């Protein structure tokens, strides 16, 4: 129970990777605030599962790209739990559109959720973490913060920005006992797909392409990310800040 007494706010945690992180942190004793936006049914299921574990949880619906909603969300967490120790920035959008397909509106929604949302949530919790001289901010990014997607340039741009968000915040917040790190997952088996999968226009081969590079024999599952997030959220990770941990079963190496 490495996180007993700690309060964790996880954005986009109704389903997918966020849900996996919420379950892992709850298993380590944290009190959980689950942010969701559109997936109320999934969020309610996550809530039920965490309550069944005997952990405390609250749900909060907010659009992380809206400053007033982020502020209200953090305020609600403080009202319920009295503190916030851990922020997991996870809510992100991926449209799988190519360079020539993007409109200004598409560009803005991706960047506002994936980058501005991460920044605003960090900015909102920072004063409270600073006051308690403890904080853990974990930005869920992607291998595509360094490796191009070849199918969604704006998503990759957003993750490139998150790479630097982590590094700048790590430098700035370190003196207050707040660490900031990035997890870079590759393919993770989740119950839905974001965005428009679209045709793969540059298919090089007819054989199943997607998972043949995962030398470890499988793609990731949400709990893989959750276990790492739980460690990075713990007091034992206090010397790790500004780092990025790629979580891909060696797929990016081949």
């Amino acid at each position: 129970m490495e996180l007993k007494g700690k309060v964790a706010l996880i954005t986009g945690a109704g389903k997918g990777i966020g849900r996996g992180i919420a379950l892992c942190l709850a298993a380590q004793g944290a009190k959980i605030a689950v942010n969701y936006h559109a997936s109320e049914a999934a969020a309610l299921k996550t809530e039920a599962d965490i309550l069944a574990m005997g952990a405390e949880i609250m749900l909060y619906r907010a659009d992380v790209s809206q400053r007033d909603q982020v502020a209200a969300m953090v305020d609600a967490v403080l009202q319920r739990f009295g503190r916030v120790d851990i922020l997991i920035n996870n809510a992100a959008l991926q449209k799988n559109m190519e360079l020539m397909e993007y409109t200004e509106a598409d560009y803005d929604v991706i960047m506002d959720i994936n980058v501005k949302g991460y920044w605003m949530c960090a900015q909102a919790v920072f004063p409270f973490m600073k006051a308690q001289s403890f904080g853990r901010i974990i930005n869920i990014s992607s291998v595509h913060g360094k490796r191009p997607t070849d199918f969604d340039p704006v998503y990759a741009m957003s993750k490139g920005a998150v790479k630097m968000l982590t590094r700048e915040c790590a430098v700035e917040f370190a003196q207050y006992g707040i660490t900031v790190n990035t997890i870079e997952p590759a393919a993770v088996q989740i119950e839905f797909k974001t965005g428009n999968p679209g045709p793969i226009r540059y298919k090089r081969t007819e054989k199943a392409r997607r998972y043949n590079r995962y030398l470890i024999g499988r793609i990731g599952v949400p709990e893989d990310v959750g276990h790492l997030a739980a460690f990075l959220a713990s007091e034992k990770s206090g010397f790790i800040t500004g780092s990025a941990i790629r979580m891909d079963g060696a797929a990016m190496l081949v």
Partner: protein
Amino acid sequence: MCRLKGRVVVLAGAAGPKGQAIASKLLQAGAQLAWVQPPDRPEAVHSGEVYATDHLLKIEADAQGTDAVREILQQVLDRFGRVDGLIFAQDEAERCTAADCTDAVYHRIMGRNAKAAFFYTQVFGGAMVQAGSGKILYIGSIHDEKPTGSSFVYSLSKGALKMLKSEAALQLGRRGVDVHLIAAGPMEGDEARFLSGLSGIYEDAPSKIPSRALCSEAELAELCAYLLIGSTRSLNGTDIRMDGGFTLYYMDKE
């Protein structure tokens, strides 16, 4: 030697000495140049007898979307009939931290440095694809990897630009357009822009460069010309760090 004779290059941004050096080099090499500057950055556009040439088209615009950039493209085509190269050099910076940055500063810097880069790439890259060839060159920054500790949003924008380069190198590179990024290191004026109480790298910056000399605008211009002139297919997708060894620094030595 007029090695760019007959070539049309669009230079987006690049104020002050940097812009003057690049523009002069390209014009001396025989290029026809369309130089685009936001309205609040007029000094380089309107300065100097160097630019009294019918090979130069000056455009004032702060374009950050498809339609606005297409208007610029049309002006270039109306004047010169073609476009062969794009140098995207917009480089807004403002001292701010993650904790105190405002939405206005965030959007101005991300808009000019990253969003504009995306739509310039989309529109001008598309035009070059139709023509069957072209070159795109981003003037980036070492702060696409090294945090500033002083200009938080600037780093985010450069991290995003770096991923745009990689994505464009794939999607446009297949269609005859080479894409490169120059990660420029400290030049005159950068110490004032980026001096940080957290990161000491800009304290006496020349002392951290093996040659003890800041990076020169003239060398940057030479590199731009080289990448525009020659066959650079093998350099597609490349990041060229141009910092004199600055980012290798970590301890003082005589």
